[in-house]
């Protein structure tokens, strides 16, 4: 194996993991966010504190959980509290530095839909719903979103705002009185997008190696813009890839699948 042989999904997971700083208190959604958060813990951020909405605080799972409440999260946690306590004291209480979320649809202001595709009363597709995301997106000091890029997902307008990003942009989030600062970055399999300082619209700040600007435009449902000084994402280091693949191999052995989805 050489660092040259890696997939777009691996680049996405590694890029997301790199954004978690050591010692951060991180509220983790299941699936891609959980993979990235545990990769960070096993590489550059050994003292990151992972909190799952089922109640484990300081979870250190040796394999990725399939569900949000797997036993390994409770067994490896510093403490396990009830679900009301997690949401009331720890999240709403303002103790979370970073909320780590996925999305079914996302718009240019990083508003997230996980509720329905189509009309709410008569949906074409009924999605799972909110889970913990609305309060994570509003109460965590900042939010990271990890999601694969496609026109079905990156849309001009989400069908339902389940979890708030920057609402209609500019200072609309702050004016609404929402406590957290909002999304700091959206990490996809093609690039990293960040909110533009004034407008809060997502612009591409870093492009993964080998990806063209056209490819990003084609997989985004609005005319996406590129930041001045938009750079190339640092390719995966051998160690990052080895740790990620070991983690996924251990997980596959334990569950028979590679990773969860909430």
């Amino acid at each position, binding site marked *: 194996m050489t660092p040259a042989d890696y997939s777009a999904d691996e680049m996405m997971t590694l890029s997301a993991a790199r954004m978690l700083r050591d010692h951060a208190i991180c509220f983790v959604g*299941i699936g891609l966010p959980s993979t990235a958060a545990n990769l960070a813990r096993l590489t550059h951020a050994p003292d990151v504190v992972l909190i799952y*909405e*089922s*109640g*484990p605080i300081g979870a250190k799972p040796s394999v990725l*959980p*399939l*569900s*949000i*409440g*797997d*036993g390994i*999260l*409770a067994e490896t946690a510093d403490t*396990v509290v*009830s*679900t*009301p306590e*997690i*949401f*009331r004291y720890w*999240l*709403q209480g303002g103790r979370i530095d970073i909320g780590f979320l996925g999305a079914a649809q996302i718009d240019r202001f990083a508003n997230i839909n996980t*509720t329905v595709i189509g009309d*709410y009363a008569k*949906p*074409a*597709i*009924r999605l*799972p*719903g*909110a*889970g*913990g*995301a*609305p*309060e994570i997106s*509003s*109460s965590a000091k900042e939010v990271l979103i990890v999601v694969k890029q496609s026109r079905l997902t990156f849309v001009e307008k989400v069908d*339902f*705002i*389940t*979890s*708030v990003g920057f*609402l209609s942009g500019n200072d*609309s*989030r702050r004016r*609404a*009185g*929402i*406590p957290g600062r909002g999304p700091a970055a959206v990490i996809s399999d093609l690039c990293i997008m960040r909110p533009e300082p004034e407008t809060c619209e997502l612009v591409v700040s870093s492009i993964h190696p080998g990806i063209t600007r056209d490819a990003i435009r084609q997989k985004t449902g609005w005319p996406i813009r590129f930041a001045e000084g938009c750079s190339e994402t640092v390719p995966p280091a051998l160690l990052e890839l080895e740790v990620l693949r070991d983690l996924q191999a251990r997980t596959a052995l334990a*569950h*028979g*699948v590679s990773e*969860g*989805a*909430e």
Partner: protein
Amino acid sequence: MAEWMPLSDAIRAAIHDGDFVALEGFTHLIPFAAAHEIIRQGRRNLSLVRMTPDAIYDQMIGAGCVAKLTFSWGGNPGVGSLHRFRDAVEHAWPVPLALEERSHSDLANAYVAGAANLPFAVLRGYTGSDFLRFAGHIRTIACPFTGETLAATPAVRPDVTIIHAQKADEKGNVLLWGILGVQKEAVLAARHAIVTVEERVERLDAPPNACVLPHWILDAVCHVPRGATPSYAHGYYDRDNAFYRRWDGISRNRDSFTDWIQDHILDTADFAGYLRVLGDSARLAANP
């Protein structure tokens, strides 16, 4: 006052058509045996509440027991969609399903309010989201001290809450541990409560501060080993992840679902019978 009794008797006494029922357990300790018994007894028109409907409510919805669902995340954890839930919402099969949709934080707070005998819960959430436009039960109130706008959500007060736990003693005091979810709050919010347990023991020997539900807040305690499978019971057995993945295929179409419910639940006498049939079908799925 808790009474030890067979699960079928406890369900027959407590659950009636049209009741508002919670079967709680956050991924862990999900009371599947009790749900199967409700399906077997043919209850209809139930209003169900549960944070994560999971395969347990997918089975009850597909079996036609449910008219309304209050929930906060309706997927098959780690796998994908709940197909019976989706078919009921998208195509009204086998009967229409009304939804009362909340966030996890809302529903957890609403159980706390119910347990505390308060009419509603207050939370700092939903601001800017479409819940305030589409979900009629969520309102806003002004803090009487600061004027801050907060979300208000009605308390959840089930007629009956059912949970699964690890142990109960001879008197019916119940001990549970691991991921506790909202079970304690759901029991205290309800008028009646039934608990199924892995083990019947002489004494609990629980340390102080352990999660113990005293026998006098419960109606019935039922000994049902493995009663939470395919979810798990911490210290007893693991989550049956293979079942949750197989459920995706079984529940994906109406015929295979209907056959499964018939063979595994309607044609079995109790949960022990279900486990025997399930063992056969799991072996068949592994070596067709």
